[in-house]
């Protein structure tokens, strides 16, 4: 079955701009903010947001890329251990306003792992969550986004795929139905 397009390139572009304005509204000049993309796919969204924020005149953004593999709650519960990606955090987050950034919010378990992982860099003043897509009604934990691109409904086995533009390929969010 052909994957269904949930968000087109144009729609994503509008969403990204809106998310940037919401971030500016909340964080002003970003002097106390640290934007943290979650590895692997959240960092791609982070890169897009940083590009747009820089175009809007925000200078000296503090950013980081955080891998949560060793903080996940499913160690020894999956057939094979998850592959870790590089963590690049060049500053402490002690007293900072952290914004965690990921592409899809599903069960909330990755975000829980990220909340534990970010603490290893200090105690932030606050932590917020920004996601492009929220798969509502599928949470395993009481975690909700503060900045939200779009909410979608998908069944448990379905896959939501975010594809970022590269050459001919355009930004798209797909839904791949789980076939019984």
């Amino acid at each position, binding site marked *: 079955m052909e994957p269904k397009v949930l968000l087109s390139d144009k729609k994503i572009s509008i969403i990204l701009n809106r998310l940037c304005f919401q971030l500016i509204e909340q964080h002003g000049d970003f002097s106390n903010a640290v934007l943290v993309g979650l590895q692997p796919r959240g960092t791609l969204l982070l890169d897009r947001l940083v590009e747009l924020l820089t175009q809007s005149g925000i200078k000296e953004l503090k950013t980081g890329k955080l*891998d949560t*593999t*060793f*903080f*996940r709650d499913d*160690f*020894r*519960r999956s057939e*094979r*251990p*998850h*592959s*870790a990606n*590089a*963590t690049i*955090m060049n500053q*402490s987050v*002690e007293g900072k306003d952290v914004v965690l950034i990921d592409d899809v919010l599903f069960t909330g378990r990755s975000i829980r792992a990220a909340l*534990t992982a970010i*603490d*290893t*860099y*200090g105690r932030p003043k606050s932590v917020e969550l920004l996601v492009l897509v929220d798969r509502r009604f599928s949470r395993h934990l009481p975690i909700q986004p503060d900045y939200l691109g779009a909410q979608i409904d998908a069944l448990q086995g379905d896959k939501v795929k975010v594809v970022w533009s590269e050459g001919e390929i355009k930004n798209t969010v797909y839904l791949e139905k789980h076939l019984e």
Partner: protein
Amino acid sequence: MKTLSVSHLLGIKYLQQEDLQLIFETAKHFKEVINRPIKKVPSLRDINIANLFFENSTRTKLSFELAEKRLSADVLNFSANQSSLKKGETLVDTVNNILAMKVDMVVIRHPHPGAAHFLSKRVDSCIINAGDGTHEHPSQALLDAFSLQEKFGELKGKRIAIVGDILHSRVALSNIYALKMLGAEVQVCAPKSLLPKHIKSLGVDVSSDFTKTLKWCDAVNMLRVQNERMDLNYFPSTREYSQNFGLTNERLKPLRKEIVILHPGPINRGVEISSEVADSDQAIILDQVENGVAIRMAIIYLLASKLNIPIA
């Protein structure tokens, strides 16, 4: 993610090249973790590990213990000199008694070659060899190769010399296996009395001319003279050994190239390596110690992921 091809770490001999790369890749991530303000991950919080040291050790024991604690495992320490071994208990009984206390993994150092292997066949637990007599010391070889790889990028075609007491050294044997597996050229250099008879069968060059070896190599691993394992006089005097095989500035200066210097520790300053050389920028001895914790975290993490114990 890939997993290790083994469920115990008994020696480098039993590993594949992919295992080494997987351990290094994982260790790289753990090295970043141990440089954070809070150097701990929660992965192994439901795992109990016993460190059984039937032989003295400082850095290996501390390094393993720190690695275990930074993975959030519960740690049990055992030293032979305070144990019931003196009352006549066998190794298998000792370990089985410890395992009865619900221990999931065992790190063992033992003066007898093959002790870890022996144990892995007789007890139901994951065994990590932290040095068995003059046989293997896999975690040391992994951290040495990792430190070299950090320095050189890739070990393929690099020339690595191992100098000193090859005969009694488990570090030498494990290093040879690891370095060869990664494509490095290896030369061992020692007085003839400290070279095992069939060392060439491991595919290494053999030399007793330290000056030539230094000219040849890109990195040199200086082994400690292991007086405690020597039942005979293998060389006339420490002074003579030091003159012929000690690494000093006088030997390094004429080379006109900077070679990387490793030492597994503990250092006998003034015997196999002079103080100036040991403390110089060329020596990566303290990097080895830092990498040791990351490598051991990687080994334990990867082996723990294969543990077949019931989940809470």
